[in-house]
């Protein structure tokens, strides 16, 4: 996989206590995304001009921004959009990957050769550039960010899907189903698809974490969701203006992103071990 996602050789070896911690973080993020009001009773857009750029304190654990808005509240309310981007981009990437991977592996011949070659080229691109090309064509927006990250990470997944389908197709139960006279499409749907995709469940989980990091990187460059969004990357972008005076605006939202990405990665690895799946 090129630069858009960390390679799957990245290993986070955490003991079970770490896994529990990772689970807690992920659950918190899910709650924040679904019902942020449960975690905090402030408003993410409440302006307080008497308390601008306050450093972290008991009252404002993450400090406040240049409009006196509570940063922790903004981070919590930003979870929905960040998680949405992560899920959307990974979903899109896998749709593309499944379409290309299955087509290549099942049809074979020239089609397979062409798709494999195209994927190799897309793979040779540093994926950030692929994503930036998409943004230059479409102009920055939430949808663009999802599409950019999705397209950027699709080639790597497509190679995995193709490999999985080729491997499972050789399995005895697929041959048996075909020999029993089941229609080709039924064999693909009932036997080939679920068995080829199962080991990729962990990869999907890892992909969500990586997509969140990547999307926030694009936002950090000012190429993501336009303000006043409190998407995590957008918070980082907004905080850059005050970096020499107010470190918390950059460091703390960044720390949240790192923690979430690490937790999702740790859970993905645990899943991978449990499911005994191959990575590539």
């Amino acid at each position, binding site marked *: 996989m090129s*630069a858009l996602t960390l*390679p799957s050789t990245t290993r986070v070896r955490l003991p079970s206590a770490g896994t529990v911690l990772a689970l807690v973080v992920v659950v918190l993020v899910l709650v924040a995304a679904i019902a942020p009001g449960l975690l905090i009773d402030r408003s993410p857009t409440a302006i307080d001009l008497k308390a601008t750029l306050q450093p972290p304190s008991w009252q404002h654990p993450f400090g406040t921004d240049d409009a006196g808005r509570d940063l922790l509240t903004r981070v919590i309310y930003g979870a929905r959009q960040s998680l949405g981007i992560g899920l959307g981009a990974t979903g899109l990437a896998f749709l593309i990957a499944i379409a290309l991977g299955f087509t290549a592996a099942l049809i074979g011949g020239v089609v397979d050769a062409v798709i494999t070659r195209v994927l190799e080229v897309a793979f040779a691109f540093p994926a950030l550039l692929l994503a930036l090309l998409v943004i230059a064509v479409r102009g920055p927006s939430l949808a663009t960010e999802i599409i950019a990250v999705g397209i950027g990470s699709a080639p790597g997944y497509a190679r995995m899907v193709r490999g999985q389908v080729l491997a499972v197709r050789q399995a005895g139960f697929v041959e048996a189903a075909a020999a029993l006279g089941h229609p080709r499409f039924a064999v693909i749907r009932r036997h080939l698809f679920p068995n080829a995709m199962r080991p990729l469940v962990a990869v999907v989980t890892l992909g969500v974490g990586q997509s969140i990091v990547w999307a*926030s990187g694009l936002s950090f460059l000012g190429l993501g969701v336009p303000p006043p969004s409190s998407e995590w990357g957008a918070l980082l972008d907004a905080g850059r203006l005050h970096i020499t005076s107010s470190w918390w605006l950059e460091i703390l939202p*960044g720390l949240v992103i*790192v923690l979430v990405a690490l937790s999702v990665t740790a859970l993905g690895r645990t899943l991978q071990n449990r499911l005994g799946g191959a990575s590539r």
Partner: protein
Amino acid sequence: MIRRILSKVVASVAVVVAAASATFLAQLAVPGDRATALMNLQTGQDKKWTAQELAPLNAKYGFDDPIVVQYLHYVTGLFRGDLGTSYTQKRPVAEVIGGQLLPSVTLTVAALAVAWLLALGVTLLTVKRGRILSSLGSAWEALTASLPHYWVGVVLLVVFAVQLRVFPIIGGTSAWGTVLPVLTLAIPLAGFLGQVTRDEFTQVLEQPFVTTARTRGMSDLGVRLRHVLRHAVLPAITLSGWALGALISGAVIAENIFGRPGIGQVLVTAVNTRDLPTVSGIVLVVAAVYVVANLLVDLAYAVVDPRLAR
């Protein structure tokens, strides 16, 4: 060996041409009429222009020609070093990029070197050196490998430039100002390379030839340096070609954080103003660099592992 390299070269040219096709398609994919968009961009207005007003632009950029002609013109132009004309700067893209290439190359090459030093240092010092050191080493690698570049950069900036004032906040291209951007790129990469070399190192340390070397009375450090290192770095060398992609992406971010001139700055501005010829030009130059770097990796491989040179 020569044959292998030749076929690699042919494949590399094919990859660059394919990349050019992709960027050409991207330029076509911009919604709306290109001449109108360009006219609005250059005059700062937003309106419909008459055919007469657009005619000179259409003629200049060849927007009226059949797509196939435009494509051939674009691809053959690339081999003459013509990357098209920037929409916003009205200069050849090659010129816009050319002046910014050196600082970016310096940054990435320095980062790759530092990352290797860090990774090898940690590996040599911590692999199989007792439980605590070993797990400290691998925890450090797992942590740093998963840090995003922008966060590493921001932390370094806040700690060493803003708080401690050791380094300038806006570094420019001075050697002192290059330290933080290089570390920003090198730290996550070192974590990643370290994880790979560590696995290899652990396995190689159990090989019979290592035991042989030890029975000859060689010191532990000597064994590690002379016998184990060469084997352990092989997979990481292969990955260095891949790593370049991550470094280039990281360079875009590091240049932005530290206000360092370079391709990344030009790229972000070009994406913001939707100056597609410039974006495409940079994408192609980077693709070419990437392809060449992977060729070099193949050669390096043959040097480290003489079995492959035959």
